[in-house]
């Protein structure tokens, strides 16, 4: 018993570790691929080389991040079989074809055009090259579509039957793919990827603006990122709320854990903070607003909200984790909205590039998207335990006939390799980001420049307006 318990704990930890490491890369590269397509499109449209330089700047960073995403993703596609072979055997007929479509429609598309995008501009010309960039961007989105369909089916399975071997078999592919939680999860994750990218781009722009607020490349990227924050962050809050209501309908135990509700109550409070205690089954030191919990979840001040204690003890997710991860995600989301609003105000006042406190805040918020993505995934994945296929297949029944020592040894190897390799990769990415975007053409620099101490191209090549007292 204890050996089996060890094996499953180790296998779960290995999955959590490798999938958490993996998701940080696509969370960034999905948004960055779209950003690259936009930059190259703007270059072709406006014929402004500033966009081309920005494209090349982010393309190099994309290459490093995408490479790490590919190799960590390969691990995931084999881990279902090595560690979770019973799950693989039972769900293969339903989930396998979805992942097969992910490989055929997304991975090959990305990989096939990545080489042209990274190395082929001089060989194929701008238009075909733009096509390659667009294909890479579309590929990342198609990939998100399929893998989130897979995850969502595990959360809210529909359209299946069970055969004599105990395998899930597909009865209605449409119902399998467009299962009840899929549209919400897809929108929530793609927006999260876009926000993650926006805040990284914004932080890099802010970093270079703090050094030189006339750096026009930094200005372009900072401005674009802040538009994204202003527009997309509030949309994400709405999308997340809708996703939450969908979860309430299909996985009420998860919502109870997120909200920290142990007792089932009419007119339940909104618990802001507290110390959930799963052992005792109650919330300690709760700071709460009366009745607001019922209002948010049921749109009725006296609506009934189901608590964790109403579920069998072995079917309760761990509120001690989920309660906190949910709050972290929420707090980051609110901070993103705040940055968006702040930048909007600064823009209205014409001080978007001069407000160094805004730049410092945006710099601090650079990694915020990764934090929110990880916290959100921890919420939804820990919150659906103890199931791999919700309500149908227990996590404990999904594991390979596996030896604790084998899982432990491979886990150690993964931890050492991931910290070494992805640590080095993060270092190289940060070093690339530290280089100025190198866009020399300063646009719209104000009257001093047009008055012309040194008009003409020589000024663009050698001089910065502020060295002549110019002010934008």
């Amino acid at each position, binding site marked *: 018993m204890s050996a089996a318990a060890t094996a499953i704990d180790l296998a779960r930890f290995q999955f959590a570790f490798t999938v958490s490491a993996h998701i940080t890369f696509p969370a960034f590269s999905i948004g960055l691929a779209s950003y690259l397509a936009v930059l190259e499109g703007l270059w072709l449209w406006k014929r402004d080389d500033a966009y081309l330089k920005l494209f090349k700047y982010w393309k190099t960073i994309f290459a490093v991040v995408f490479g790490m995403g590919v190799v960590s993703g390969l691990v995931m596609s084999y881990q279902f079989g090595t560690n979770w072979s019973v799950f693989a055997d039972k769900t293969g007929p339903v989930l396998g074809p979805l992942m*097969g479509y992910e490989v*055929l429609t997304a991975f090959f598309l990305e990989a096939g*055009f990545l080489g042209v995008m990274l190395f082929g501009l001089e060989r194929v010309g701008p238009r075909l090259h733009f096509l390659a960039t667009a294909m890479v961007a579309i590929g990342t989105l198609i990939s998100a579509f399929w893998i989130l369909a897979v995850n969502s089916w595990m959360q809210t399975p529909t359209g299946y039957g069970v055969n004599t071997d105990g395998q899930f078999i597909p009865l209605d592919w449409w119902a399998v793919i467009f299962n009840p939680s899929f549209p919400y999860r897809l929108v929530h994750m793609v927006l999260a990827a876009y926000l993650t990218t926006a805040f990284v781009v914004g932080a890099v722009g802010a970093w270079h603006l703090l050094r030189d607020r006339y750096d026009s490349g930094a200005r372009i990227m900072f401005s674009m990122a802040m538009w994204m924050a202003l527009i997309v962050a509030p949309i994400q809050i709405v999308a997340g709320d809708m996703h939450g209501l969908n979860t309430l309908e299909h996985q009420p135990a998860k919502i109870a854990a997120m909200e920290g509700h142990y007792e089932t109550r009419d007119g339940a409070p909104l618990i802001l903070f507290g110390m959930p205690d799963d052992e005792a089954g109650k919330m300690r030191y709760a700071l709460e607003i009366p009745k607001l919990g019922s209002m948010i979840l049921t749109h009725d001040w006296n609506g009934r909200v189901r608590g964790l204690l109403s579920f069998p003890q072995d079917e309760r997710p761990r509120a001690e984790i989920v309660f906190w991860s949910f709050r972290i995600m929420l707090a980051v989301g609110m901070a993103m909205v705040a940055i968006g609003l702040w930048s909007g105000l600064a823009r209205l006042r014409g001080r978007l590039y001069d407000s160094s406190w805004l730049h410092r805040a945006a710099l601090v918020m650079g990694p915020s998207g990764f934090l929110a993505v990880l916290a959100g995934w921890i919420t939804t994945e820990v919150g659906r335990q103890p199931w791999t296929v919700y309500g149908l297949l227990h996590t404990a029944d999904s594991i390979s*006939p596996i030896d604790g020592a084998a899982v432990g040894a491979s886990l150690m190897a993964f931890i050492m390799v991931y910290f070494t390799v992805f640590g080095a990769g993060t270092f190289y990415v940060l070093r690339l980001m530290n280089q100025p975007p190198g866009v020399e053409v300063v646009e719209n620099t104000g009257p001093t420049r047009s008055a012309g101490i040194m008009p003409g191209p020589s000024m663009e090549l050698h001089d910065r307006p502020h060295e002549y007292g110019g002010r934008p």
Partner: protein
Amino acid sequence: MSFDLAFIWAGLIAIAVLAYVVLDGFDLGVGMLFPFLGSDEERDLAMNSVAPVWDGNETWLVLGGGGLFAVFPLAYATILPALYAPLIAMLLGLIFRGVSFEFRPRADRSRFLWDLGFAGGSLVAAFAQGLALGALVQGIDVVDRAYAGGWFDWLTPFSLLTGLAMVIGYTLLGSTWLVMKTDGALRDRAERWAWRTGAVTLVLIGIISLVTPFLNPVYLHRWFSWPGSIFSFVVPALLLFCVWLFWRGMRERRDAHPFIAAQAMFVVCYIGILISFYPYMVPPSITLWQAAGPDESLGFLLVGALVLIPMILCYTAYAYWVFRGKVRPGDGYH
């Protein structure tokens, strides 16, 4: 033999794995040759010759694994636990190999570490793939739809031999690739390696071919009784033709021929393995029909595969076409 969905899918998976072997094989071979190249410039050139295509090549491995999960879930759920250690080693090797493409050009003082990671990762991945192949040929112990063997069943003299053969064989692919794709000193160095690895590869193919039929009565029966015994003449004859093509291409400096011939050798050996295996997917007990998922799953993915695989082949060919010809210094602009 019945020509049904499971059979078609077994063929498609076989093609995907073969595509992986012939495509990523030379990438890994270039990686393993890395320590033996003369200078940093030669290593730059060698790496740049595969940098635009390696990711697409590796994707066939994802298709092989993902496809197995989709259409032969029982095979996926028994082979992967059985080959636990070699597969984990392969994945870790491929991690070092893959990131080295992007890390090496970014590193200054630590560049030698990523040279090492590129070569070591390629070596580990190639050796692990050979081990896995050998272990699969020897057979996997399955009881009640689950792997029932031990955690070191994959480690045998035979699997070590196939591991070695994979390392040498991939290095042959890598060196003939460099003969085709480069010029000057690097090309000549690769040519010397192609001669050496070519000779050793042939010796190893010979030994493995002689041993394999005696691992399993099914294999023995297949190769030494009618009608299977036809293959005992056809397959070696095809192999000899490849050897002749290789030898002539090397002697007459037709730089694409040795590469094509070495690839053809791999294809012939692969066909030999398929002949031994059929109709088993997990020897010695699970046939491809027993391993197959329900027809609804096979049919659903087949529709997509029949439309998408030709498209994939087209744009993959286009990517190779864009980067055709010999690589020159300064081509990769890292």
